[in-house]
């Protein structure tokens, strides 16, 4: 039976069919749906971990204990997880161990465009790269058996277009996989210097074996169309190339991008006059090919930036232009905070107070967008707290009196708490605002340790943010409603004034949660509207300014009433 699936769901299916027993991940676009899709397989243990490092270590532990295990993350999540990755390369795998990492070329929902293939090379871990959903399933299944065969973790590398494109997948029965025995093995599993020294030898031997495997595995396939042009490619770039070049070129499709084959590439190159490497982001394959002394066209003709497409490849390889209507200069439609978003109240106040805002990763990064223009910095998960600590230490107390950190509930648990401990321990006086919207919002509503529910929606212990902050030594912790604008403004002013660390928990659930009831909509009485544009400062997508007056689009308004509180002329009232 065939089913239409996104690549992420197909990875989940592949893991299920391979008998995966433990899956632990932290959400991150474009990888989130892999772990969410595992939920429907009831006999697999699956969880959201507080961050990628914890998730990865949980999977590693499960593998050492003899189970097939997986952890999935976005590219920047792999940075968080990098510490155990480099060492588990030495330990290897008892039960099959798979790390699935999704890159985001074009940065649809990311803060950078890093190429995760470098991690495979740096940590000496093999990496497979599927090009569509069917391969997502097959490669994932294979990854578990390769992991056990070569005693190594295995990376699956995805990219946004593979993760989020649906294509047909053949559904098979899951394998019956028994737990492997757990045998205490200090030399293999305790990575202290004496043991690690001997394990490094094993890793290098494994590299040799995997390089040989790369020469013969059907994952790396030649399609000889009798052409004098050769294309070496992998992943979604293969799909673009096939679309653009059809059977006009020969292909070497690499399903395994680390380690790369040598003889296979030499032989493929010897049969063509012109050789291209087509790969998004960095010249990873290209540098390997050049290292073999083979002349190749790569980043000299293709971009290091963003996504590729069939037209782009057609233009470069065949010099063919496409006849299309010219793009016009149109207003952009950037993402915005939703109507009713609780973060709007917070940023309205921060924008009004003109404070420096050390921001973080989540929907609330949109607080940097006009008209709120509130956020000053966004770096990575958790950096809002620690970077503000650095800012305060650099510029002193006067600067710190107009400086706040803004971080979401899930992000705070991920890696904000350690920054807060740093502030307390090192005598900082920072004010940290935790935006507690009762969910992990940006990635599409995942539960986290502060929601009181597991990934399977089972009730569990809920981390109490107030108690947590107090426990690390913050004495001033208060809970405020960001839609009580006056009260919230007062709270921020007071906490900025005091000479000790403080936390404000801005508590109001995400407007998109099904549990949040919306009551009707608001409307502007145009006789009372004096065109002061105070409501426009909220940057609400439901409020427009037309013919000299504010208007509310009833199809977009969800009745949150925030605009009522900022209108000085009581011109906004409930709609009929």
């Amino acid at each position, binding site marked *: 039976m065939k089913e239409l699936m996104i690549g992420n769901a197909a990875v989940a299916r592949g893991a299920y069919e391979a008998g995966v027993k433990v899956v632990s991940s932290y959400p991150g676009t474009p990888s989130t749906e892999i772990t969410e899709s595992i939920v429907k397989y009831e006999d697999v243990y699956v969880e959201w971990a507080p961050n990628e490092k914890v998730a990865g270590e949980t999977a590693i532990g499960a593998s050492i204990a003899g189970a097939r295990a997986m952890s999935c993350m976005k590219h920047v999540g792999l940075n968080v997880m990098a510490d155990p990755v480099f060492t588990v390369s030495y330990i290897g795998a008892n039960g099959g161990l798979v790390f699935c990492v999704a890159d985001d070329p074009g940065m649809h*929902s990311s803060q950078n465009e890093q190429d995760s293939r470098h991690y495979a090379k740096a940590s000496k871990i093999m990496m497979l790269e599927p090009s569509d959903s069917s391969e997502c399933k097959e490669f994932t299944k294979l990854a578990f058996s390769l992991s056990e065969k070569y005693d190594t973790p295995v990376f699956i590398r995805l990219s946004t277009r593979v993760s989020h494109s649906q294509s047909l997948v053949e559904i098979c029965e899951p394998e019956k996989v028994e737990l492997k025995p757990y045998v205490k093995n200090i030399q293999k599993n305790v990575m202290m210097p004496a043991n690690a020294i001997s394990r490094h030898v094993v890793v290098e031997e494994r590299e040799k074996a995997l390089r040989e495997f790369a020469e013969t595995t059907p994952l790396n396939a030649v399609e000889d169309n009798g052409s004098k042009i050769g294309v070496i490619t992998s992943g979604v770039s293969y799909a673009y190339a096939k679309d653009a070049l059809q059977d006009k070129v020969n292909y070497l499709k690499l399903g395994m991008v680390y380690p790369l084959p040598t003889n296979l590439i030499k032989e493929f190159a010897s049969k063509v006059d012109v050789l291209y490497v087509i790969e998004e982001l960095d010249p990873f394959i290209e540098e390997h090919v050049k290292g073999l002394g083979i002349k190749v066209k790569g980043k000299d003709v293709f971009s290091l930036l963003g996504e590729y497409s069939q037209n782009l490849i057609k233009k470069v390889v065949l010099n063919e232009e496409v006849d*299309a209507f010219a793009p016009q200069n149109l207003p952009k439609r950037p993402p915005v905070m939703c109507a009713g978003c609780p973060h709007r109240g917070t940023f309205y106040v921060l924008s009004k107070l003109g404070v420096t805002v050390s921001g973080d990763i989540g929907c609330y990064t949109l607080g940097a967008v006009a008209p709120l223009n509130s956020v000053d910095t966004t770096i990575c998960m958790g950096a809002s707290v620690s970077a503000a600590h650095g800012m305060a230490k650099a510029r002193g107390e006067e600067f710190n009196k107009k400086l706040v950190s803004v971080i979401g509930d899930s992000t705070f648990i991920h890696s904000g708490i350690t920054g807060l401990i740093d502030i307390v321990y090192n005598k900082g006086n920072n004010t940290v605002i935790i935006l507690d919207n009762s969910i992990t919002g940006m990635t599409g509503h995942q539960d986290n340790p502060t929601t009181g529910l597991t990934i399977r929606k089972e009730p569990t212990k809920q981390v109490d943010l107030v108690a947590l902050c107090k426990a690390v030594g913050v004495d001033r912790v208060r809970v405020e409603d960001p839609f009580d604008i006056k009260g919230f403004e007062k709270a921020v002013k007071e906490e900025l004034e005091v000479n000790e660390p403080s936390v404000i928990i801005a508590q109001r659930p995400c407007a998109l949660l099904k549990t949040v009831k919306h009551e009707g909509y608001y409307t502007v009485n145009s006789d009372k509207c004096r065109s002061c544009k105070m409501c426009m400062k909220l940057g609400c997508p439901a409020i427009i300014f037309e013919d000299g007056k504010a208007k509310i689009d009833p199809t977009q308004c969800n009745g949150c009433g925030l605009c009522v509180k900022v209108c000085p002329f009581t011109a906004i009232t409930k709609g009929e």
Partner: protein
Amino acid sequence: MTKNIMIVGVGGQGTLLASRILGNAVISEGYDVKVSEVHGMSQRGGSVVTYVKYGEKVHAPIIDKGEADIILAFERLEAIRALPYLKKGGKVILNDRKILPMPVITGATTYPEGIVEDLSSKADVIALDALDLSIKAGSPKAVNVVLIGVLAKSMDIPKETFIKVINETVPPKFLEMNLKAFELGYNYEG
């Protein structure tokens, strides 16, 4: 040759359900298919695009400039933004609705005038008020199914296939209303 259909709109407009119905209808006819969309930050009120491609064998998951046979647009500005992707001689089905983007709301720029006229001078355009038809079907929430109805009429896939897929996709409680919405779209004559 693949058939390429591009669905464009604004995050939150329900384009994803439309692409799901379309994708499943295409599979029922035994085609190879790829449906591609982007999740995450762009969904928060930003421009959203879904590509549906089908044929004997589909390779690239995205539709490139000059490749779309049909553009199904949930909003006017997004329709004109997608125009470079339309094949010359292609068709645009337009839900004639205006949603102001934030740079227009803040006054940094203005919403372009004459979009429907501009589109009509370049392509075969069906423009309709799908919200009106959706309300006639019994709910303002079936705009996407109305538009799928209009699209179905322009495609080489039997109407019955779409009806079967809607039966399988939509919760029973809303089935009758959605089937009515589909019929209103299918029978729309501009």
